[in-house]
């Protein structure tokens, strides 16, 4: 027996909304009290302990040479991340390639640069000048050997740079950070690529798209959703790791400059506090940037932030759709021969 309801909304009056007494949470109030006391103690310490020298921090944390340091730190962060991400994508694609040589080289690179600490890399690159006095760009390998053999002067070098100008200071620091970042980014990008449903590549291939087009248009944009959050992490880590290039040495970098002021004035501790504040400020800006990038690459996805629907301008929303015209025959199985 079946019941049918002619007009379900009109049948009965809507009952009044539930107004129940909510569950009490006394534990929360205890926690609030404890945290309030601890916070008050902390603030009290910040304000009353004279060793902090707040006025000294304010006077010295924005000197021109420190602003210059901030600029260098930002530049190092941006450049090493750009190089790191681009190289990382290349390495990840190589690592996933069916060519065993390419994937082997990518593996070796990742192994080396993940194994050696960044501090060691920074100092190592800073001292590269010991290895070669000159770098020959576009040089023929073993040109010297062949010219000796043939008895002619073969100068296969296109141009050369003095190692001391190429690999000191900023350049050495940048290379150390960027090359090591590429290794970490390669793993992040690889994870992102592997997270994309293989059916996507199949659909793309079935449409006649090339491998490159498939990667560029279909796989990577979807991989970005997985790649972005850890890349944000990496960028923040990179911002802080730029302080390592002080050992290259790069002298116009933020932390080095703050320490220099501290050492010169014998006020080391307040300048360390200033460093904390600067890194907090810079990281906060990065977080805002990350939010917008994540939002961009989440388009079309239902996951994350509830079932948000993006660009609803064209009246899209799931819902029953009338069967198209011409539903003449019964296509259901079940009517036996």
């Amino acid at each position, binding site marked *: 027996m079946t019941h049918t309801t002619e007009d379900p909304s009109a049948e009965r009056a809507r009952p009044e909304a539930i107004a129940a007494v909510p569950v009490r949470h006394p534990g929360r109030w205890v926690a609030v009290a404890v945290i309030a006391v601890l916070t008050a103690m902390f603030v009290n310490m910040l304000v009353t302990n004279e060793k902090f020298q707040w006025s000294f921090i304010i006077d010295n944390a924005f000197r021109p040479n420190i602003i210059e340091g901030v600029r260098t730190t930002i530049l190092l962060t941006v450049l090493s991340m750009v190089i790191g991400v681009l190289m990382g994508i290349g390495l990840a694609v190589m690592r996933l390639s069916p060519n065993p040589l390419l994937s082997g080289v990518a593996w070796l690179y990742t192994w080396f640069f993940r194994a050696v600490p960044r501090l060691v890399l920074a100092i190592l690159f800073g001292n590269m000048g010991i290895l070669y006095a000159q770098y020959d760009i576009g040089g023929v390998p073993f040109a010297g050997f062949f010219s000796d053999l043939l008895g002619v002067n073969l100068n296969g070098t296109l141009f050369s740079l003095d190692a001391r100008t190429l690999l000191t200071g900023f350049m050495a620091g940048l290379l150390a950070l960027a090359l090591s970042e590429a290794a970490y980014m390669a793993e992040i990008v690889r994870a992102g690529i592997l997270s994309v449903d293989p059916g996507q590549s199949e659909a793309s291939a079935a*449409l006649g798209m090339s491998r490159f087009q498939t990667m560029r248009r279909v796989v990577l944009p*979807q991989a970005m959703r997985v790649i972005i959050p850890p890349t944000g992490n990496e960028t923040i880590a990179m911002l802080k790791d730029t302080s390592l290039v002080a050992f290259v040495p790069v002298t116009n970098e933020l932390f080095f400059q703050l320490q220099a002021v501290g050492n010169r004035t014998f006020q080391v501790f307040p300048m360390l506090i200033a460093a904390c504040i600067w890194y907090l400020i810079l990281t906060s800006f990065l977080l805002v940037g990350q939010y917008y990038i994540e939002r961009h690459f989440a388009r079309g996805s239902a996951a994350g932030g509830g079932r948000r629907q993006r660009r609803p301008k064209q009246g*899209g*929303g799931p819902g029953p*759709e009338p069967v*198209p015209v011409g539903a003449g025959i019964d*296509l259901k199985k079940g009517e036996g021969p």
Partner: protein
Amino acid sequence: MTDQSAVDTGATEVVDDFMVRSENVHKSFGRLEVLKGIDLTVRPGEVMCVIGPSGSGKSTFLRCINHLEKIDAGRLWVAGHLVGYREKNGKLYELRDREVAAQRRDIGMVFQRFNLFPHMTALENVMEAPCRVKRESKAQVRERALKLMDRVGLADKVGSYPAQLSGGQQQRVAIARALAMEPKLMLFDEPTSALDPELVGEVLEVMKDLALDGMTMVVVTHEIGFAREVGDSLVFMDGGVIVEQGSPREVLANPRHPRTQDFLSKVL
């Protein structure tokens, strides 16, 4: 292009009237032999339905037709061209990725799980391949894509992302996406198996419309009703071989092989 001319003048190139011709096709995954010698032909304009229990190799065979799977033995031609290989002086040469991609342009495929690109709107999904692969002008492609969206009954959903569409709507967009490349042959891999029952009809309607329009189709399906109404021929596969084939009404009404009888008694 020299490669191309080699294909056309290849001494053993079979020129025939068939859209698909399969000769003793074998395929194994590791030690498991999935296809054990498939012979069949599909004429232009024919709608062939392939039925059979899961694991019978019907989807694998369909994927061999556009070289998503490499066959291990036998020969497979689409529109007179060997799929995935070039035969010259009795020797087979693998085609380059670029040449395989060129062959796939003429073969549309619809998947069980739709596989729409989730980061593109429905219209962008349909326009992607003609714009990127055929490099046609965007305005021209857009016009055709809008017509196709209208044809599958989704003119009002062009700006929606796949996640905002029901399964039936997504599958219809997927059909429009395949049609946008103007293929000679359409492959359907269980296109309604992932759909809620009430959404199956709308997809089958679009497919029937396409069949009436003269499209050559190979449809792997469990929809016996569709096979009977729309199919020109029916193939029953089991255990990697074709057990029985013929006109759908014939096979469905009087299955001769006991395995066909057994299968049909379970699904009908």
